[in-house]
């Protein structure tokens, strides 16, 4: 059998195959890791001295707090109404909904969220939220423990985050207060 040296094309093909194999194994490893550490994406923001968050999947937009029309005679937690993508939405005071919370900066941002029943509304917020993750298992455990709309979840670095369950917050049977935890 005559042994022939590899030509340039063959060498490149082999290198490409090896490169693809390395990438594939990297991706396989990532997938395995993902399965092990399922995460829950959240939008985290400050409220007074505390850290609050809501599920990122419920967040539709973050808008500057302007063009809000106050609604006289409405419930105390209603800041006003605004127009968003052709719809009229309520702007609500999150601090008020959570039972009279102090705040550090006057809210300048509105978070447009899905209330959990398909309707949208806007919640005021002191700063633009930061997307981050929490271990899904921790969130699930907190959800089981909590009775009210706010779940206490500890991050890996032992920071406390108050995760808001919007469905419970907007459920009329829920107290909406912090003591509902």
């Amino acid at each position, binding site marked *: 059998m005559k042994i022939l040296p590899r030509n340039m094309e063959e060498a490149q093909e082999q290198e490409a195959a090896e490169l693809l194999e390395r990438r594939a194994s990297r991706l396989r490893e990532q997938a395995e890791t993902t399965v092990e550490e399922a995460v829950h994406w959240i939008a985290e923001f400050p409220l007074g001295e505390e850290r609050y968050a809501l599920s990122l999947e419920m967040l539709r937009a973050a808008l500057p707090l302007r063009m809000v029309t106050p609604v006289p005679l409405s419930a105390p937690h209603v800041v006003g109404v605004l127009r968003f993508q052709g719809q*009229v939405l309520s702007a609500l005071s999150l601090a*008020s909904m959570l039972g009279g*919370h102090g705040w550090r900066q006057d809210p300048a941002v509105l978070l447009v969220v899905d209330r959990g029943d398909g309707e949208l509304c806007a919640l005021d917020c002191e700063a633009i939220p930061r997307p981050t993750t929490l271990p899904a298992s921790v969130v699930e455990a907190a959800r089981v423990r909590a009775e009210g709309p706010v779940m206490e979840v500890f991050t890996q670095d032992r920071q406390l985050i108050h995760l808001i369950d919007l469905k419970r917050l907007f459920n009329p049977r829920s107290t909406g207060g912090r003591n509902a935890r």
Partner: protein
Amino acid sequence: MPVDPMLQGLVTGFAVEAQEVIQKVTMDLLELERDGLDSTALAKVYVRLGRHLHTLKGSASSLGLQDLGDIAHKLEDALAPLKASSRKMPRSVVDVLLHGLDLFMLRAQAHADGRGDALPDPAAALAQLVAEGPAPETVGPQASGQAPQSSSAEAAPLATPEESALVESSSAMNQDAQPESADTGWRVSVRQVTSLMREVERLREVRLRVEERGRELDRVVTVLAKQGLLAETAEARTLLAGTSRLLRTDGEETSDIVDALEEGLKAITTRPVRTILDPLQRMVRDLSRQLGKEARLSVVGSELSLDRRLLEKLQGALVHLLRNAVDHGLELPSQREKAGKHQEGALTLRIEQQGNLLFLECSDDGSGIDVMRVRKVAESRGVVTSDEAERLNENQVRDLIFRPGFSTRSDVTDTSGRGVGLDAVRASVEALQGRIEVNSTPGQGTRFVMTLPVDLGSSPVLVVRALEQLVGLPMLAVEATQLARADSLRIGKRKAHLEYQGQLLPVVDLGARLGLRALAPPAEGQPLLIVQSGGKRVALGVDAVVGDKDLVIRPLPSEVRDVPAWQGAATLSRGELLLICRPDWLVTETGQAAVTAQRRALVVDDSLTARALHRAMLEAGGFSVHLAASGARALDRLATDTYDVVICDLDMEEMDGTQLIARLREKKETSSLPVILVSAHDSAAARERGMAAGADGYLSKRECAAGRLLAEVLDVMSRRGARA
């Protein structure tokens, strides 16, 4: 009976056509059953009825639907002897004919669905129809000799029955069946049409913006003219004025385009309201007979055309309301007579569209809602606890009838008693972003009013101002505008009245009514609008009339939909929302005396959300709260109103908290007014600065949790009180 496959497509169209014709026949039958028609009118209805039945027979036969042709023929037979007599149709005959029509429609639909093969032999049903039909002797001697065929001949005098049937059938198919399936049209999805509607709405807003730009240009021209540089700016002003004129023309053209687009979309998406209302006549008749009652349904506004989807969704709600009215509302004829009413109960459906709002009213002249009974039943059924029931006022008790599980019927009947009905009505109205209200007077009747948004159309709105709040008033409710003059005002201790066209109208201050300021009599020269609704009129005091606009009114979101003051919101030229006030709320009396007894707080903060938070906390503590967005506005408020405490932001533009305190301390009336400063700054220096300026208390916003703010306010007030 199999249908020729070639004709199957036409059968579907025929079923639609038959439905419409049967509806007309039903209306005619109900008309013939009633008293009050003279013989000429009766004869006309009989002829029309005969023609409709003949059309049904001819159309069915031409498609090979022999069973339907036979049914229609039997119905013609039943009608024939009565036609000649031109007398009111006996109820038993109406029953037979209605039953025959039901049978006809059921079979027509089955043929259209391709289920014709599975239909039972019509012979038995036909035999029953014949048996139930009127015996010739029951309708009078004149009619006894009439042969059925003669009625057909009368109905189509220029052709044989077969020929006329073919002609009518083919014309009906051309009109109704063809456009649905032929290549002359398009099939479009609801989403595509809805999206077009949104674009039309956007175009309407663009038109508003164009108008605003025109006004801005006019202002620029005025400013340039005022500069004293008339010669230097002449060319620029001429150019700008020309552009402004062109903009106005463009705006008008845009307006025409919007109107044309709306008309086009309306034609595509709407159908006459009568298509859902007419079948209700039959339902009312059948149900009242079943319950041994007499009822007549009158419809006002059936000529309107509305969105097909809206109509379909409303149909169920209307059926529920009317069934309830017949079952619960109307009394038995003997009871009605005893109460001095006509033995036939009156039901009214009124439909009115104002701009893009639809008002649907369903009323009866029955016994009204027994509030005591509702309260008792709600308690016994666990809808509310006895404590809750005690606290409810009459309106709230009436609203309990919309709660799930509520029914005053103790027995379950075919009609009601299962506690399902009005809650479903409310749910379907709310699903359409509407609202439903109920009014009732014992012994006189009950009225349900539904207000629903419709996609197309705009409403003329008068924009007014109360303090800083712009408010829209439906123009239809504004009768006149005038300025307050001392000689036409009658100012009492608690109320002011305006002498207007020989009447004394109560003066309502919009700002006070909205809780924005304390009640005060109108000032000389203040604009007063004469607002009317439901036969009541008031003189509405506003701070300014801004102007009139043609606006699209949108429904409010669920969090504020139940605030009785507001009908909806409309977008203004800069994209901000304008709240539209409900005239019926404005003309309704309220007790303001209770409000004046409360402790009053003024919150001054340039942050809308901070104002809302302070207000929430203070109102929870029993305070009546007014708001000001700046130091200057706070001074305006303090010049006219008195307050027990002021909560003021330290850092505000133009005039900060310390400057406001300095101004307050200068004046005798406010020198000892308790003021609490709040600030985002939590530093000792900021606190020191605030207290040095004369504040009675200082809180960082972080500390402003509900209890803390309230405790500070009460503490400061008691300290000031002790010092005084």
